């Protein structure tokens, strides 16, 4: 009792836990309950009950209110769907002039807008794509198919791979120096000789369209939010949800609005890539010292001059870090967009994975990873590059990079021309190495996988069985055994104890949304997988981070490794695990663990590093040994930052769990994947995405509230 008086919080937590378990034991599993394996929305089942809301009929299985809340929000996906359909096909029909048929045609406004947007995006992508690899579509846009058949010479020739490679090398050299230039050169040569040139350039052209557009919109909105509090307040919740929503789920409504293909993918990529740009723009502009702003004002800047001549140049680095983020998001979307038929590396990867051709998948995946690293390093180098002064240099010195590039273009063209004679009758390898003519290591990898399977099958199988039967199944059963009321009490109680009434209300709202949707069971499965992943990841990340922190070099090395791994699109992680563990939940969980360990490790190291040096010295002078210093000084101070790492770990884990649906899991992701191939899936996909985002936001809210309090307490806010 003494203890409880001393720590009133402890008592409150105990009380909460006791209530939770009491509720769990008090509420029995209703006999009618079963885990729904099919899709309640699409299958008519005589056991289902129905209710009608807003004119929509919602079907559901009978629910005991204490056990599971009734799906009162079941109408939401249907309603979203119908509204979208209405907006697209019936709302505001207007007369539009049709160039082809030379007559007016009635079309709903939104459909027309979507068509125009589609046309514009397609044009942009085709243009850049054909500059890189050649084609005729751009010229067709300006003239017509008839004209093309009359003039067979009219074709954008595309750049030989030698020129693109040289361009990448020169740009890397200009941005960062020899090391990056070498890496760029090797990457491009690898892509070329392994026959991945065409899909790589398709992916690149996708990024070259999506990234600049996202940058412009993100910067504009960021500036607007910086200058107007109301805009910021309106944007903030959207940004929050977008940051935690699985990229996968956003694809579904895009299909309804823009159909499938590159253009739809670019538009939806922008939706995903703009939020981080906005956030970093606001952050960067906020970080400009007030005195610099005052200096600008005292120089007589008007608002426009202040923004573009003082604020933005001063915030240059943060804004360029935003560009880096935009590029990385675009790249990972370019891969995932394969699900809505965007061409490029992702598409090849998806095909290979579907055919279980691990060798091919590995080649594509390696390509993706290399390009991801290259893009990341290049944009970071750009952000960190400081301008040199060129005032006293001659014309040639100032423009040597451009002159060099012009030179290589000429040499490349000459080489390609020579190539037409050299490789007469076969492919011109100095222009492009076609997909099937490159070196392929697929066979080697496939044989390797087979060998691993043959040799280690028994062990892998045993491990698999043990994990699933003794760990995962019981854990899953435990999660599903929680009555909804008990879960809500636990979460809301935690919210109240950590962040007070405000936090409790927010968390309550988020949980209720999921509980009232038709997918509570699935959300529990998602949460169970994520929890398992997070626990293992945090343990590994914590240990690895702490160990590598003991030495300066290993710490930097680990951070570098984290940097590299983080640039890989999440999809890539599925390749090696499928290679080793086949199509099981184990594969998904291992991918989750690998992916989510990155932030756990990173934040552990960064947290430990952020402990002030003065404290180290003070501790050393008090005569602590290494272990005491770690437990008494470093951990307590680094802990808030490490908790933020756990926050990130949860988001990463959730993303991976959702993508894991591709391998086959029975959670929210499975539904999202199904919604992708369903023409009425938009509402379901979006609602599911929001559910996943809300799971992340519940934890986010709890952890952030705690961290803020703790930081204030420690005086390191």
């Amino acid at each position, binding site marked *: 009792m003494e203890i409880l008086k001393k720590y009133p919080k402890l008592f409150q937590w105990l009380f909460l836990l006791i209530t939770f378990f009491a509720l769990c034991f008090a509420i029995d599993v209703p006999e009618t309950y079963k885990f729904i394996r099919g899709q309640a929305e699409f299958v008519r089942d005589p056991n289902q009950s129905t209710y009608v809301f807003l004119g929509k009929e919602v079907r559901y299985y009978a629910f005991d209110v204490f056990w599971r809340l009734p799906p009162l929000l079941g109408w939401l996906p249907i309603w979203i769907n119908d509204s979208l359909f209405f907006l697209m096909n019936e709302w505001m029909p207007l007369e539009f002039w049709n160039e082809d048929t030379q007559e007016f045609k009635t079309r709903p406004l939104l459909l027309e807008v979507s068509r125009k947007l589609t046309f514009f995006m397609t044009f942009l992508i085709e243009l850049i794509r054909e500059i890189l690899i050649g084609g005729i579509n751009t010229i067709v846009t300006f003239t017509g198919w008839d004209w093309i058949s009359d003039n067979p010479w009219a074709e954008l020739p595309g750049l030989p791979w030698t020129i693109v490679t040289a361009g990448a090398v020169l740009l890397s050299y200009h941005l960062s120096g020899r090391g990056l230039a070498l890496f760029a050169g090797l990457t491009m040569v690898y892509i070329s000789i392994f026959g991945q040139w065409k899909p790589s350039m398709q992916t690149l052209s996708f990024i070259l369209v999506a990234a600049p557009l996202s940058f412009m919109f993100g910067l504009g909105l960021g500036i607007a939010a910086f200058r107007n509090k109301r805009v910021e307040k309106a944007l903030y919740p959207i940004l929050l949800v977008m940051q935690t929503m699985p990229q996968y789920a956003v694809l579904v409504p895009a299909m309804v609005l823009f159909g499938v293909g590159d253009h739809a993918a670019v538009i939806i990529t922008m939706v995903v890539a703009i939020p981080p740009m906005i956030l970093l723009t606001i952050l960067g502009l906020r970080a400009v*010292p007030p*005195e*610099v702003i*005052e*200096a600008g*004002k*005292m*120089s*007589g*800047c*008007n608002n426009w*001059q202040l923004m573009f*001549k*003082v604020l933005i*140049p*001063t915030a*240059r680095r943060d804004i360029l870090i935003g560009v880096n983020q935009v590029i990385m998001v675009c790249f990972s979307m370019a891969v995932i967009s394969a699900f809505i038929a965007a061409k490029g590396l992702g598409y090849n990867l998806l095909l290979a994975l579907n055919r279980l051709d691990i060798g091919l998948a590995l080649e594509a995946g390696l390509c993706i990873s290399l390009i991801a690293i290259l893009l990341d390093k290049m944009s970071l180098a750009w952000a960190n590059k*400081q*301008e040199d*002064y060129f*005032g*006293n240099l001659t014309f040639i010195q100032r423009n040597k990079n451009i002159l060099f590039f012009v030179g290589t273009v000429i040499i490349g063209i000459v080489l390609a021309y020579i190539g037409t004679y050299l490789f007469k009758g076969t492919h011109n390898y100095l222009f492009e190495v076609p997909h099937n003519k490159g070196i392929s290591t697929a066979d080697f990898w496939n044989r390797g996988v087979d060998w691993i399977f043959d040799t280690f099958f028994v062990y892998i199988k045993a491990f698999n069985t043990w994990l699933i039967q003794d760990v995962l199944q019981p854990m899953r059963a435990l999660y599903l055994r929680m009555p909804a009321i008990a879960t809500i009490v636990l979460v809301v109680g935690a919210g109240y104890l950590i962040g007070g009434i405000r936090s409790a209300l927010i968390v309550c709202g988020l949980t209720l949304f999921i509980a009232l949707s038709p997918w509570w069971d699935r959300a529990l499965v998602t949460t169970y997988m994520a929890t398992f992943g997070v626990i293992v990841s945090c343990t590994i990340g914590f240990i690895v981070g702490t160990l590598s922190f003991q030495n300066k070099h290993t710490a930097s090395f680990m951070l570098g490794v984290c940097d590299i791994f983080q640039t890989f699109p999440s999809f890539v992680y599925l390749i090696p695990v499928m290679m080793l563990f086949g199509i099981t939940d184990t594969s998904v969980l291992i991918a989750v663990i690998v992916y989510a360990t990155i932030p756990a490790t990173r934040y552990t190291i960064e947290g430990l590093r952020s402990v002030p040096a003065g404290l180290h010295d003070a501790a050393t002078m008090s005569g602590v040994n290494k272990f005491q210093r770690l437990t008494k000084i470093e951990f307590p101070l680094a802990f808030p930052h490490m908790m933020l790492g756990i926050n990130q770990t949860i988001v990463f884990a959730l993303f991976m769990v959702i993508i894991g649906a591709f391998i086959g899991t029975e959670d929210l992701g499975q539904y999202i994947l199904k919604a992708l191939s369903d023409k009425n899936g938009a509402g379901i996909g979006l609602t599911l995405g929001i559910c996943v985002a809300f799971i992340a936001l519940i934890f986010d809210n709890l952890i952030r509230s705690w961290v803020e309090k703790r930081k204030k307490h420690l005086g390191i806010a």
Partner: protein
Amino acid sequence: MSDAVIKCESVYKIFGENAKKMLQEANGNVDAKTFQENGCIVGVNNASFEVAKGEMLVVMGLSGSGKSTLLRCISRLTEATGGKIFIEGQDLLKLNNKELINLRRNKMGMVFQSFALLPHKTVVENIAFPLQIKGIKTEDTINKAMEMVKLVGLDGRENYFPRELSGGQQQRVGIARSLAVEPDIWFLDEPFSALDPLIRKEMQDEFLRLQEQLKKTIMFITHDFDEALKLADRIAIMKDGLIEQLDTPAKIVLNPATEYVRKFTEEVPREKVLLIEDVMDKSTDGIGDLKVLKDEVIENVAEKILTQEKTVGVIDDKNNLIGSINPSKIINTVFGGRRNGD
């Protein structure tokens, strides 16, 4: 137009949501404590003063005393909550945005504590920045900026970036930038506080040299009383938003108005601050052969005077006898009690 370039009439700056309303209700009787209880913080409390053309007013106060806030009210970087501010007879608070920008572009220059240089521009580009903002041709702005570079002694470094300069050099750029448009009014917000003591002294001397040449109307903010004494024509000492005393350095040293001001003056080496004029007697009876100039600092002539047995005569620069000083007076001033000037 009166002689005053800057004129403040009971200027208030109060931070907080209901600041305006509370100020009206207080009816000119602002008490920091009651305001704080209602969630308002008093930055500047009833500041009234004038700065004449070519005069240097140094505002001295510790951190949180409201000195920077006062300066920002007068440059209108923050809006004053109450009172009137006149710049060359113009009512500053009534100017619209365009007029304000015009005023800043042509009449005002400001130097900042943390230099506030633009990191992406070179020295010469930074200095040319206010000119470019005005829309002057780039070539002309660079020429003018080069003049400024020479004025502050940075020739040869005009193409450096701020990150490549030392603190003192960066502040020279800041000074040059604030002078580029040839403003009449010059605001300096703790310009030397971020510098090392040796560099600070060097910059102060440099600053005095510049002012000798340029004769600007200056408001100079500092937290360093010695700096204030060294530079000022007049000093305003602020505490909790109130101006405790506004007077010439000598008068502040000799007649501190409040206990707070007296604490600053206690440690001041008077012989280095006071002039003969400040301590002389008006009577010219019974003076000896030695005569000293009235503008001499006591320290410089103390030895001469103290070796005299008779009273020493004081003359002005036209050699007119205007007063006398007894050696005992010097001893009294330097070593004696605190109220010697009477």
